[in-house]
């Protein structure tokens, strides 16, 4: 979405995901803030960070080649990760599964943890909400119009620039939310985002740059490929994701749902 509206390839998503999880873990440790509160508070904090990032840094490079913002966000990632390491060390912080979601349920032959089901359902919910906002509201229409064709939207009297900051902040907030959701099942440390961003990149490319539906479909696709890959070829499961990406690029250079001009 950030790419669609701004033409900015945000490479700092991994770092924002990490920040989301770290903030949740630190708040839990120092103030006892529960998972449920963090689920609301962390995205808000991340939204503010996103707004600051956009206002202070990203906006100045918008007029230049997108590569500059790519480098900027990459630099921000290195900076943030090292800052967190300096402050909180490299060992993971503790983040237990939230109370009430610790159990397991049996669904026929498979047994799933309640938290997994919750995380999956919550992700779907967030997707649906984002989709509804984008398709059913005026704000969503403006954002979509700007994504489709910023020039023409501007010609129609829409102040595209006004929406740039909140959209950027929203994107960062979502990354932070993902971090909170991941905290109970992943190790929470400064490096947790570095791996995430690579998979994310594959998902975006497979789905098609700038396509929101594409990103959702590709996300599930990549998840399935990884899971089956683990089952059948073990250590090569991650390679499979990139094989999939290479195949998609080979046959559909713009990604599954991308448009040619976006690529």
């Amino acid at each position, binding site marked *: 979405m950030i790419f669609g509206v701004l033409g900015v390839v945000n490479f700092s998503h991994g770092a924002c995901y990490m920040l989301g999880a770290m903030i949740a873990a630190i708040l839990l440790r120092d103030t006892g803030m529960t998972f449920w509160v963090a689920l609301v508070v962390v995205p808000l904090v991340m939204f503010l960070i996103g707004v600051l990032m956009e206002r202070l840094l990203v906006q100045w490079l918008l007029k230049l080649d997108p590569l500059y913002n790519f480098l900027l966000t990459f630099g921000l990632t290195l900076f943030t990760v090292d800052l967190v390491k300096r402050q909180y*060390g490299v*060992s993971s912080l503790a983040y237990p599964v939230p109370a009430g979601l610790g159990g397991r349920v049996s669904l026929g032959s498979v047994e799933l943890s309640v938290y997994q089901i919750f995380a999956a359902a919550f992700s779907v919910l967030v997707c649906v909400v984002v989709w509804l906002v984008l398709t059913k509201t005026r704000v969503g229409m403006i954002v979509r119009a700007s994504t489709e064709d910023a020039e023409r939207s501007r010609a129609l009297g829409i102040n595209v620039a006004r929406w740039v900051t909140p959209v950027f902040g929203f994107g960062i907030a979502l990354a932070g939310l993902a971090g909170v959701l991941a905290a109970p*099942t992943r190790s929470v440390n400064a490096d947790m985002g570095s791996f995430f961003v690579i998979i994310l990149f594959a998902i975006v490319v497979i789905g098609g740059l700038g396509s929101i539906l594409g990103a959702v479909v590709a996300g599930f696709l990549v998840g399935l490929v990884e899971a089956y890959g683990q089952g059948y070829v073990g*250590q090569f499961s991650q390679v499979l994701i990139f094989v999939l990406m290479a195949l998609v690029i080979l046959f559909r250079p713009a990604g599954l749902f991308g448009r040619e001009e976006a690529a």
Partner: protein
Amino acid sequence: MHRNKSLALAASAVAGSLVLAACGSGGPSSGGGKISDDKVVLGLLNDQSGVYKDLSGPNSKVAIQMAVDDYKAKYGDKAVAKNIEIITADHQNKPDIANTKAQEMYDRQKADIILDVPTSSAALAVATQAKAKKKLFIDIGAGTTALTGAQCNKYTFHWAYDTGMLAAGTGGALVADGGKNWSIVYPDYAFGQDMTKSFSAAVEKAGGTVQQKIATPFPNDNFATFITKAGSTNPDVVGIMAAGGDLINFVKQYNQAGMADKARLAVGLMFITDIHSLGVEAFKNTVFTDAWYWNFDDQNRAWADKFKEKTNTRPSFAHAGNYSAAFNYLEAVQAAGTDDADAVVKQLEGKKINDVFLRNGEVRAADHNVTHDVYQVKVKSKDQVKEEWDYEEVLKTVPASEAYAPPSPDCKM
């Protein structure tokens, strides 16, 4: 990433020219003099910023400083080494950087010994340098048996642990305790493969069976399917050979998958810092082998208290190992009356040591592996924990003779 590479290139270019400069000036002047350059230089080369920072890292310098203080207090005016300097460098767990830094330490900074060096590939690179420069290297942080096996040399010692000892302590003991059937999950790189080989051998020797050996990518953050697969044969024990962040990913997901109630979890290599970061709850019933535990007895505890005064944290076995290695090196310099590497090696070889870290320790002359009693431990349950860092219950002391394999025939000094 490119930036790192070009930095590394630049660093090796600089180091390369330094090596040439050192050769030009006549090389090391250790010959007949008592203390070269009038000082003994201890070089600490380890991970100062990455995944192994907390378990050894900068706090190992504190441990080495404690060894220097104790040495000075013990010998006072009679000390052979009057000026002792500690230098540190970050090898970022990369063998190429370790190689360059080791050259720099030995040649330019006149290090008489390099200590620690976690990460097996980096340790092997430093061992090669030690051999070429004829200077000492005592490894504490790395696990590979190759240091005292095929790639052993006269100037390299392995002080704290190796994969063979971890396997004998954990693998053998769990089979004896009824854990006959094993599934092993391991990251598919040198350390994971080495650990899996050692564990399989130990489990089979004790009469158990390894039903599955499951390779995973490294690094990896999603183990869901691997865990399902590991549980599919209903094993008594699931052995995990990952370390650091991957280990924590695995344990969290293992517990969420409900496996903790079905099979015991055995961790190949665990540091107390791992338990500290996840909390004892997550490691319920987990068994592993520790080279040293700070709260094992009064002697350890006293040392750990001193360490805590300086660092505000409890020591891992790597910290205590660095202390012990540095102190015994200085003792050897004292006994030899010089810091000449060959004379010091002669003092160390075959030496029997009992100190805060080594119990029934022996510096084996045949392969320079330092064998000692190690501990099979279980992670305490939450209500057993009486203070911060009080995480381990020692089930059994594994005598050195059982923990360490005899010297490898591959080692030719």
